[in-house]
């Protein structure tokens, strides 16, 4: 392999890409609306995702109001409650987290971090956003159709999802499935971009093993998504046919409301397999980008190279591979061959190995680092703790014998909210606080940030920790109200009230956060270039914030992304694209 190092002063030309018109968008419309610039698409994706996420947030408040204070709110009927549960889950997992991590951060960061002008297929990338928006609009429309949105639970299990008696079994479920199909089509278009950009459009010198872990995380997550979403697509289309054409893919012979239906012989379990073949990788589609972002943010704010970079990469790849062979641990209570259960319990526990490895590496990165307790750092530390918590309860639930009694209790709600709700959301916050200066040129307000962090962090624990106990005493999940039950102590009701109040307080903190963003876009303190003194390419563009086409001349990459606190160098970091002869060195003091 030919090298151009400091010894031989060989001139290496930057990689060249053809000049494309989109780097010089002419009209306002092509620049900001039908833009093919990945950065604009990223902002569009993020804004849409956050807006629909706010709907999901409000739904969670309504749910908690009912659980905390049953018989108080006359406008919440059992039907409404199931619709809140369903739409909250679906919105948060797919339309918020997946879209924000891959469509939002993926679009913004991949081209900038690997040193590309843009995504490789900008037009397809633009289509991806508009189809996503269409999916979101269809989803939103389902709130306004007769019968309301589907109330089948976010897993949409047949046969109940499409039968009489389930809320929204008319237009609600149909729109839900159509929306999912569109989401998958749109995502696939974006996903092709992310994968091919990482594979083929990196700047000269950016070998795969020099990529920041953020890019690794998003890259592997996208590969997972491209291979997992087809399962949801198939399941969605088949259920749509079951609902509309009365085929019997998933619906067995069934008597509903005293009437024998036309369905015969379908298999609900088949749907569950398809759904979870998508559903489990989905957890890692959300978690892997979070892992990547955390690794980078921690390294920057602890001024230290990430500990065990190679292992971090291997762990990401290993988790990605393993995530495809654990899906049936979501189906222990559906009944299965014990050997089958044994297999999935084993693979589930094995996946804890690379995950634990990552946790150790994050902690070891912090160890003796020059830790700056900035807001992004605080959120990352909070993520590490929370993910550990959620991961450990995952080990409980991964075992069939423990899962079966706990499966339908609040314990599961606490587990998955910790591990794939709160933890990735913390990373999203960390990423927003970290990269907001790059996107807007301004800092987010520190005071409001501190308030947002502490209320959210402590609040999240006050919400979900007690839920574990509720689960242990047997409080079931998905129930509209428990009423008086022999084995549930009255204190459970008090705890539920407490949780609801905490939810509203944490919810208020998010309002402060949104206000902070809106205010800081216009009035925030100017950040100056590279406020966090990071090494990665996105902070070293010609224009700041980066303009169309990202870079002036495409960068040359001389090193990996983690040269922090290098002995003998004046600044405590060496950017990836700084030529060796430009590094300012200091003489040792002695």
């Amino acid at each position, binding site marked *: 392999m030919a090298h151009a190092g400091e010894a031989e002063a060989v001139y290496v030309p930057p990689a060249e890409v053809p000049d494309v018109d989109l780097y010089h968008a002419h009209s306002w419309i092509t620049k900001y609306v039908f833009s093919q610039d990945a950065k604009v698409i990223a902002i569009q994706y993020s804004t849409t995702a956050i807006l629909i996420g706010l709907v999901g947030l409000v739904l969670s408040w309504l749910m908690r109001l009912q659980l905390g204070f049953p018989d108080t709110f006359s406008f919440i009927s059992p039907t409404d409650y199931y619709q809140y549960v369903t739409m909250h889950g679906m919105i948060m997992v797919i339309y918020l987290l997946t879209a924000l991590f891959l469509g939002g951060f993926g679009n913004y960061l991949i081209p900038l971090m690997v040193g590309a002008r843009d995504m490789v297929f900008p037009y397809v990338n633009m289509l991806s956003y508009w189809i996503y928006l269409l999916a979101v609009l269809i989803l939103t429309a389902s709130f306004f159709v007769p019968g309301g949105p589907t109330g089948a639970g976010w897993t949409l299990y047949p046969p109940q999802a499409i039968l009489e008696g389930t809320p929204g079994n008319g237009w609600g479920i149909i729109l839900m499935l159509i929306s999912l199909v569109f989401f998958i089509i749109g995502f696939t278009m974006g996903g092709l971009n992310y994968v091919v950009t990482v594979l083929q459009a990196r700047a000269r010198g950016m070998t795969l093993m020099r990529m920041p872990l953020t890019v690794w995380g998003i890259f592997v997550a996208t590969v997972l998504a491209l291979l997992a979403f087809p399962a949801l697509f198939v399941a969605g289309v088949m259920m749509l*046919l079951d609902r509309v054409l009365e085929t019997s893919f998933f619906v067995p012979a069934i008597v509903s409301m005293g009437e024998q239906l036309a369905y015969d012989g379908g298999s609900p379990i088949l749907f569950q397999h398809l759904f979870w073949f998508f559903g489990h990788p989905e957890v890692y589609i959300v978690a892997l980008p979070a892992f990547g972002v955390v690794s980078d943010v921690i390294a920057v704010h602890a001024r230290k190279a990430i500990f065990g970079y190679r292992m971090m990469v291997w762990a990401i790849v290993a988790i990605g591979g393993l995530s495809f062979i654990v899906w049936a641990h979501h189906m222990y209570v559906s009944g299965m061959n014990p050997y089958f259960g044994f297999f999935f319990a084993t693979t589930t526990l094995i996946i804890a190995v690379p995950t634990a490895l990552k946790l150790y590496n994050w902690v070891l990165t912090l160890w003796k680092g020059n830790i700056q307790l900035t807001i992004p750092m605080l959120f990352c530390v909070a993520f590490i703790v929370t993910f550990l918590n959620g991961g450990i309860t995952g080990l409980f639930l991964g075992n069939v014998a423990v899962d079966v009694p706990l499966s339908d209790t609040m314990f599961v709600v606490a587990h998955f909210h910790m591990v794939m709700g709160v933890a990735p959301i913390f990373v999203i916050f960390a990423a927003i606080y970290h990269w907001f200066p790059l996107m807007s040129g301004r800092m987010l307000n520190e005071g409001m940030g501190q308030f947002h962090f502490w209320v959210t962090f402590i609040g999240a624990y006050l919400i979900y920790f007690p839920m574990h106990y509720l689960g242990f005493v047997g409080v079931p999940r998905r129930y509209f109200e428990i009423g008086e039950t022999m084995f549930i102590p009255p204190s459970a009701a008090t705890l539920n009230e407490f949780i609801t109040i905490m939810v509203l307080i944490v919810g208020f903190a998010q309002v402060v956060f949104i206000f902070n963003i809106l205010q800081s876009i216009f009035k925030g303190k100017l950040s100056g270039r590279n406020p966090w003194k990071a090494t990665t390419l996105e902070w070293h563009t010609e224009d700041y914030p980066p303009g169309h086409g990202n870079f002036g001349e495409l960068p040359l990459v001389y090193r990996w992304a983690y040269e922090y606190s290098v002995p003998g160098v004046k600044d405590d970091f060496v950017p990836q694209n700084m030529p060796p002869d430009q590094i300012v060195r200091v003489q040792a003091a002695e």
Partner: protein
Amino acid sequence: MSIFQTLMEKPWATAQGGDVPLDGHQSFSMPMEKVGLWVFLSAITVLFTLLIISYGGRMELGTDWRPLPDPWLLWPNTAVLVLSSVFLQRARISARRGQMDGVRISLLAAGGFSFAFLAGQLFASYELVGLGYFASTNPANAFFYLLTGLHAIHLIGGLVAWARACAKVRRGFEARQVALSIELCAIYWHFLLMVWVILFSLMLIT
């Protein structure tokens, strides 16, 4: 460079001095569009694999599976799809050799056969529906319509790419400028042909 070698690299070892390797910034030595197509094909492979598994799984379950008579039309239809694939391959070769006349004829023929295939599939479905094989009456019927339908939709998507290639040819692009588009179409058509052959054999043997 193998993936394992790549993953064994120690990026920190070269960080102090800093160097720019002249290669290694592209993972595959083929055009991006082609890499994109292969990534897309792997996603579609998963899609159809899952459908086939569901097909097998659903067939085993219950006692209601009554195979439907495979319309004879599917045989000539398969031949038509083979022809469209063959002609795209010819277009690909002509484009590589710079023979625009050959490209034009083969491309049109391939498109024509593809449309004929789609029409044939549609007609076969109409025939089945006419005979009373509704999607709702039996899972075998439902799977027939689902599989042929999804396959047809993918082919229609391919025809969009085909139309764009045709438009390029019409606007008088040179052979080397359309070679890639045609090559991608050809790969996609071969892939869909393979999928169809698998689906068709699956329906024949069951």
